[in-house]
C-alpha cells in the first residue's frame, strides 16, 4: 500500500512539491512511515474484495486514492490542532496537494469502474462531507457552546464521511449493485464514526496540555464533562489539566457516556456487515477488519472511569 501511495504522488503531484509531500507522509503517524497503518486504504481494499472476490489494479489505485484523501484530512487536522513543527501554511499547501493527488488517483480508478462519473461524484461529494465536519469542528471550538447533538453531528460528519468515501468509492469501482451502495456507505460511516469516538474517549482528559479538554475541543466526552463540571473543567492559567481535574472527569460519567455511543455505532456497523453478507458479498475480510478496529479499542472502551459498576 505504501508503495502505491508513493507511486500515486509521483504520478499525480507536481514535481516541485513531491519530495515535501513524501517527507510529510513519512513522519510518525502518517501513511508512508515504516509503521504507517494505511487503514483507510486497506479498508477500501477489503470493500473491493468483498464485491469482486479478488484484487486487481483498479483496487490498488482506488485504495491509494482513499488513503491519500485520508492523509490529507489528517494533515489538516494536525494543522488545526497546531501540533506540527512546520508553519501551518506550508502544511496546508501540502494537504491540498495530497488531496488533489488523491482526487487524480480517484479519477484513474473511476475510469476502470462500470460507472466512472458516479464513482467520481461520490468521491467528491462524500469528501466534502468530511470537510463539513472539519468546518464544524473549528466553528464549535471557537464558539465554545456546542450541544451534545451538534458535537455528535460534527464527529460523524468529520470521520464517518471518510468511511463513506472509502466504502462507497471502492464499492463503486468494484461494480457493486446499485441497490447496495448505500449499505456499503453506511457500513463505512458507522465503523469510522466508532473509531473516532474511541479516539475522542481516549484523548479527552490527560494531565498536562495535550488533552482535548485542555484544548477546549468540542468532542462528546469533553462537552458532557464541561456541561456538568464547569468549574472543574477549566485548565489552569498555564493551559494544563491537573490530576484533580482528571479525577473529576473520571467520576463524571463522561467516559461511560462516550463508550456507550461508540458501541452503539459499532452495533450499527455489525448490522450493516451482516446485511452485506446476507446480500451475498464476501465479507470475511471486512469482518476481520472490523474486529481489528474493535480489538484496538478494547482497552479504551472498558475504561469508563471510577464509580461505574455493572
Amino acid at each position, binding site marked *: 500500500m505504501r508503495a502505491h501511495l508513493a507511486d500515486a504522488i509521483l504520478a499525480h503531484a507536481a514535481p516541485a512539491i513531491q519530495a515535501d509531500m513524501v517527507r510529510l507522509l513519512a513522519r*510518525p*503517524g502518517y501513511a508512508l512511515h515504516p509503521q504507517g497503518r494505511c*487503514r*483507510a486504504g486497506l479498508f477500501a481494499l477489503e470493500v473491493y474484495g468483498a464485491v469482486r472476490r479478488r484484487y486487481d489494479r483498479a483496487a490498488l489505485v482506488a485504495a491509494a486514492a482513499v488513503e491519500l484523501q*485520508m492523509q490529507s*484530512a*489528517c494533515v489538516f*487536522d494536525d494543522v488545526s490542532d497546531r501540533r506540527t513543527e512546520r508553519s501551518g501554511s506550508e502544511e496546508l499547501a501540502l494537504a491540498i496537494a495530497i488531496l488533489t493527488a488523491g482526487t487524480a488517483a480517484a479519477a484513474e480508478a473511476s475510469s476502470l469502474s462500470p460507472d466512472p462519473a458516479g464513482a467520481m461524484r461520490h468521491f467528491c461529494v462524500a469528501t466534502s462531507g468530511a470537510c463539513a465536519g472539519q468546518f464544524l469542528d473549528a466553528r464549535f471550538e471557537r464558539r465554545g457552546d456546542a*450541544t*451534545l*447533538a451538534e*458535537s*455528535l453531528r460534527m464527529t460523524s460528519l468529520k*470521520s464517518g464521511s*471518510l468511511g463513506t468515501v472509502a466504502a462507497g468509492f471502492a464499492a463503486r469501482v468494484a461494480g457493486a449493485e446499485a441497490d447496495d451502495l448505500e449499505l456499503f456507505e453506511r457500513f463505512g460511516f458507522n465503523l*469510522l464514526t466508532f*473509531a*473516532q469516538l*474511541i*479516539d475522542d474517549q*481516549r*484523548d479527552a482528559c*490527560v494531565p*498536562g496540555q*495535550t488533552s482535548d479538554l485542555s484544548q477546549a475541543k468540542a468532542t*462528546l466526552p469533553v462537552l*458532557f464533562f464541561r*456541561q*456538568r463540571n464547569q468549574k472543574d473543567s477549566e485548565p489552569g492559567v498555564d493551559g494544563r489539566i491537573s490530576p484533580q481535574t482528571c479525577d473529576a472527569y*473520571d*467520576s463524571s*460519567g463522561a467516559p*461511560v*457516556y462516550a*463508550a*456507550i*455511543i*461508540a*458501541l*452503539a*455505532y*459499532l*452495533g*450499527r456497523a455489525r448490522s450493516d456487515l451482516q446485511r452485506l453478507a446476507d446480500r451475498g458479498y464476501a465479507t470475511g475480510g471486512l469482518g476481520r477488519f472490523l474486529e481489528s*478496529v474493535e480489538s*484496538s*479499542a*478494547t*482497552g*479504551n*472502551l*472498558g*475504561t*469508563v*472511569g471510577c*464509580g*461505574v*459498576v*455493572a
Partner: protein
Amino acid sequence: MDAIALAQSLDISRNPDGSISLRELQVELTRQGLDEFAHAVEALIGRLSPAKLTLNNTIVPWF
C-alpha cells in the same frame, strides 16, 4: 442517535453517592425506548476494565 437523551438517562440513573450502575442505566434506557443504547450498555458491561489505562503523548489517531 439521540446523544442528549442518553446524557439525560445517565444523569437520572446516577445513584445518590454519584456512582453509576450500568444495569440500572440499561433499565432506564429500555424504559425510554432507547433500545440501541441499552444494547450498547450490555456490550459495555462485558468489557469493563478495573483501572484507567496509562495514557501518554505518543498515541496516534486510529486513522
